[in-house]
C-alpha cells in the first residue's frame, strides 16, 4: 500500500468535513450489529469512556456554512449564536438519526438549555448534560466529578448491555493518550514550521478525529505529519499569530484560509479543544476513573468556559502560548453572541497588553460568508506587526 500524499489526506479529511450526513460514522455503526454512536458538543467530554463501552464518540460542532438552517431558526431568537440552531437542524433533518446519545458539556447557558431542548425534541435519544466541576480540589470537585463520570459510565453500561471493566478503560485511555500525543506533535510542527502544515489543512485533519474511530485517526495523523513535514513548501513572509475564541462554534474553513491568505501563520488556536483538552498522558496504572478526573482537574487546558481561581494566573496560558510558539500577536475571533468568549475577551486583552503582545479582535458566525473585511483587518494587523517589530 502506498503512503498517501498530503493532498490525498487533506482531500479525505475535507470529504469527511463536508459530509453532514456523517456517512463514515453511519458505516462504522452498520458494520457490526449492536454498535452505538454517542454525539457530543464542545468543549470536552471524556471520550475514553465512550470508547471503552465499544461506542463511537462523534463530535457535533454545528452545521457549518454548508448547512442551510430552516427549522433550527424557529427555535432561537436572532441574538443567540448559530451553533445551537444548526445542531437542532442536524437533528430535525434526520442527519443524526443514527446517533444513540448526545452529550452537552457545561460550556454556557445556550448549550446548557439545548440539553433540555434535546430531551424534549428527541425523547428516545439518551441525552446528558455533562456538568464538570469548576472547583479543583481533589476532595471537593474531584469527588463530585468522579461520581459524575461513574454515573455516565453506568449509563453507558446499560446502553451497551455489558460492564465496562477498568481494564477496558485503561486500554481506551492508552489509545487516546497516543492520539493526543500525535495532535501535540502536529501542533509542534505547526509552531516550528507553519509553512509545512497550514492551519487550514491541520484543521481538517484534526476535525476528522471527531468522526473517525480514534485508532484510524491516529494513523491518519501519523501519515499527515510525515507527509507534511516532507513537503517542499515555500516559506512565506507571514506573521505568526495565535487565534483564540473558536472553542465552540467553529469558524468557516474560508475564515481560516482568509487569515492565512492575509499573511498569518496560525501557530496555535483553540479549535476543537476536546482533541487535546488533557495535557500530557493520563496514567494507566491505578483507578482509570480517578486518573481521568485528576487529569481534568490538574492537567487540562484553559478556556473561557473554565473558571480560573488564581487571579494572577488568569490569561497567562495565552501569554505562555505566545512565548512557546514564537507568536507575534493574537487574534481574538469570537462567535457573535458568545458569552464565554466575549466576556472573557477584555480580561485576556488586558493580560496581553501588560505583556506587550499586540492583538486585534473580530466576530464571526459559523456561516459567515463575507471574508474581505476579515482579510483587511488581519492583513493590516500583520503589516503593523512587521512595521513595529522592525522599528
Amino acid at each position: 500500500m502506498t503512503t498517501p500524499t498530503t493532498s490525498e489526506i487533506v482531500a479525505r479529511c475535507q470529504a469527511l468535513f463536508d459530509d453532514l450526513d456523517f456517512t463514515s460514522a453511519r458505516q462504522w455503526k452498520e458494520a457490526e450489529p449492536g454498535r452505538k454512536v454517542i454525539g457530543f458538543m464542545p468543549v470536552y467530554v471524556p471520550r475514553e469512556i465512550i470508547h471503552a463501552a465499544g461506542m463511537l464518540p462523534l463530535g457535533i460542532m454545528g452545521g457549518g456554512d454548508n448547512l442551510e438552517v430552516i427549522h433550527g431558526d424557529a427555535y432561537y431568537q436572532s441574538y443567540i449564536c448559530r451553533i445551537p440552531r444548526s445542531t437542532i437542524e442536524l437533528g430535525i433533518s434526520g442527519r443524526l438519526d443514527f446517533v444513540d446519545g448526545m452529550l452537552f458539556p457545561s460550556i454556557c447557558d445556550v448549550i446548557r438549555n439545548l440539553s433540555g431542548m434535546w430531551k424534549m425534541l428527541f425523547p428516545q435519544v439518551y441525552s446528558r448534560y455533562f456538568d464538570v466541576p469548576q472547583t479543583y480540589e481533589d476532595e471537593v470537585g474531584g469527588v463530585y466529578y468522579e461520581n459524575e463520570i461513574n454515573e455516565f459510565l453506568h449509563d453507558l453500561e446499560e446502553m451497551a448491555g455489558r460492564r465496562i471493566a477498568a481494564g477496558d478503560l485503561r486500554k481506551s485511555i492508552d489509545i487516546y493518550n497516543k492520539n493526543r500525543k500525535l495532535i501535540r506533535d502536529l501542533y509542534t510542527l505547526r509552531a516550528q514550521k507553519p509553512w509545512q502544515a497550514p492551519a487550514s489543512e491541520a484543521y481538517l485533519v484534526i476535525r476528522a478525529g471527531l468522526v473517525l474511530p480514534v485508532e484510524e485517526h491516529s494513523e491518519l495523523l501519523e501519515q499527515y505529519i510525515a507527509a507534511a513535514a516532507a513537503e517542499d513548501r515555500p516559506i512565506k513572509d507571514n506573521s505568526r499569530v495565535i487565534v483564540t475564541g473558536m472553542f465552540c462554534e467553529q469558524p468557516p474553513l474560508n475564515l481560516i484560509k482568509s487569515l492565512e491568505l492575509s499573511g498569518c501563520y496560525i501557530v496555535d488556536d483553540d479549535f476543537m479543544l476536546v482533541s487535546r483538552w488533557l495535557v500530557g498522558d493520563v496514567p494507566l496504572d491505578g483507578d482509570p476513573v480517578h486518573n481521568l478526573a485528576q487529569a481534568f482537574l490538574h492537567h487540562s487546558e484553559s478556556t473561557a468556559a473554565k473558571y480560573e481561581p488564581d487571579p494572577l494566573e488568569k490569561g497567562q496560558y495565552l501569554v505562555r502560548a505566545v512565548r512557546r510558539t514564537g507568536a507575534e500577536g493574537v487574534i481574538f475571533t469570537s462567535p457573535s453572541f458568545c458569552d464565554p468568549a466575549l466576556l472573557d475577551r477584555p480580561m485576556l486583552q488586558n493580560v496581553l497588553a501588560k505583556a506587550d503582545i499586540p492583538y486585534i479582535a473580530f466576530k464571526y458566525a459559523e456561516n459567515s460568508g463575507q471574508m474581505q473585511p476579515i482579510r483587511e483587518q488581519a492583513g493590516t494587523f500583520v503589516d503593523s506587526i512587521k512595521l513595529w517589530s522592525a522599528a
Partner: protein
Amino acid sequence: MKPKVTKAPPAEVVKDASMLKQKEMMAAHYDRLSSARETGEKVASTFVPGNLNELLMCFDLVNNLPEVNAIQSGLRRQSGAYIMEAERSGHSEDVCTYVKSDIGMMAKGNIGPNGKQLPDPDVLMLSYTGCFTFMKWFELLRERYKCETIFLQTPYMADGKITPNMIQYMVRQFKEDVIPKLEKVSGVKFDIDRLREYLAKSAKAEDDLVYILKSARNKPSPIDAYFGGIYYIGPIFGAFRGADDAIDYYRFLREEVDQRVAAGLGPVTPDGPMGEERYRLVVEGPPNYTNFRQFWKMFYEEGATVVASSYTKVGGTYDYGFRHDPARPLETLAEYCLGVYTNRSLPMRIEMLANYIDEYEADGLLVNSIKSCNSFSAGQLLIMREVEKRTGKPAAFIETDLVDPRYFSAANVKNRLESYFQMIEQKRSGRGAAA
C-alpha cells in the same frame, strides 16, 4: 412673543403602602452600604440566584447585589450611559447588560441609587448558580477590586432532580472553602446556630411570601405578580431574608393583600387602582427596567394582570414547597441554590409555566425575551410552543432587554400586546359560540 409653555407637573405615581415600605427598606440598605467604610462594616457582593444572605449575615457582612444595582440604574434611566461606557472600554454589544451597567457604573464613580458612592467589596461571593455569565462578571470585578473571591458552584438540575452528589458537592464546598474564607475575610468565627436562627426566620417570611403569591388565584387578583412582583421579591431575594425586616415586611404585605381580597380589589398600579380585570396572564422572562412604568401601563390599560411569573422565582422557588430548613443548615443552602428558576432544566421550566396557567386560571402565556440574557432566553421559543400545546391557551412573544434602553421599542411591544389581547378575546368568543 412666544407663548410661555408650562410643563404639566408629572403625574404622581401611586404606590401601595407595601411598595413604599419596600422602598424605605431598600433606601436604608443602600445608606448602610454607602456608609460601610465609616461604620467599619465589611461588604460582600453576590448574586440573587444563589444568594446566601443568611450565611453572609453570620459573618456580619453587608450584602451588595450588583444585579439589584443594575436594576436600580435601569429604573433611574442611568443604565444606558453606563452600558455605553462599558462598550467604549471594550465590552461587546452582545453580552449581558447587567454586567455592562455594573462595569459602566464603576467606571463613573460607582454611585448608588442614593447618590452616594458604593464601597469596594471586601469579598466577592461568586455563587455560580443558574447563569454562566456570573462567572465572568465576578472575574471582571475581581480584576478590578483584587479582593478575595469565593467560588461556589451549584450543579445544574439537568435531569429535573437534585441528586445526593449535588448536595454533597455543595456541602463540601461550604465546609472546605466558602466558610473558611468568609471567616478569614470577616474575622468572625462561624456559628452554625446563628445560621439556624436566620434560616428559621427565612422560612417564616417565605410562608407569607407564598401566601401572597398564591393570592393571585383570586378573581380579581389582588396583586400583579410581575410588575408588582418586582417590589414583593426585593426583600426575600436581597439583603433581608433571614432578618426580622423580611418577616415584618411580608406580614405587612400579607395583611394588605388580605384587605384587597376582602374588598374584591385588583392590584395598585402607578396610575391608581386597577380597573376591571380583563386578562389574566402568566409571564416568562425578566421585565424591562428602563421603561418599566411604560411597559406596565401597556398591561393595566388593557385590564391585563399578571397572575404568575417565572422571574419572581429567580431568587428561590418557594411556591414549589422549598423552605429554608434550620435542621439541615448547609444542605438547605444547597437545596435553595439548586432550586432557583434559572437552575432548572427547560422541561422543568415548561412544567412550571404550564402549571401556573392552570393553577391561576390564566388566559395565556407571555414571553418577554431578553436580548442579552442567554440563561433565560435560549429555548424560550420552544417553551412558548410547548406551553401552548399543553394548556391549549395562546402564547405571545415580545423582545426587550433588561437595562439597555436601545432595545425597548415601545410601539413594537404595544402593538404585539394589543394583538395578543385581541387573540385572547377571539378565543373566548370562539369558546362561547361553541358552548
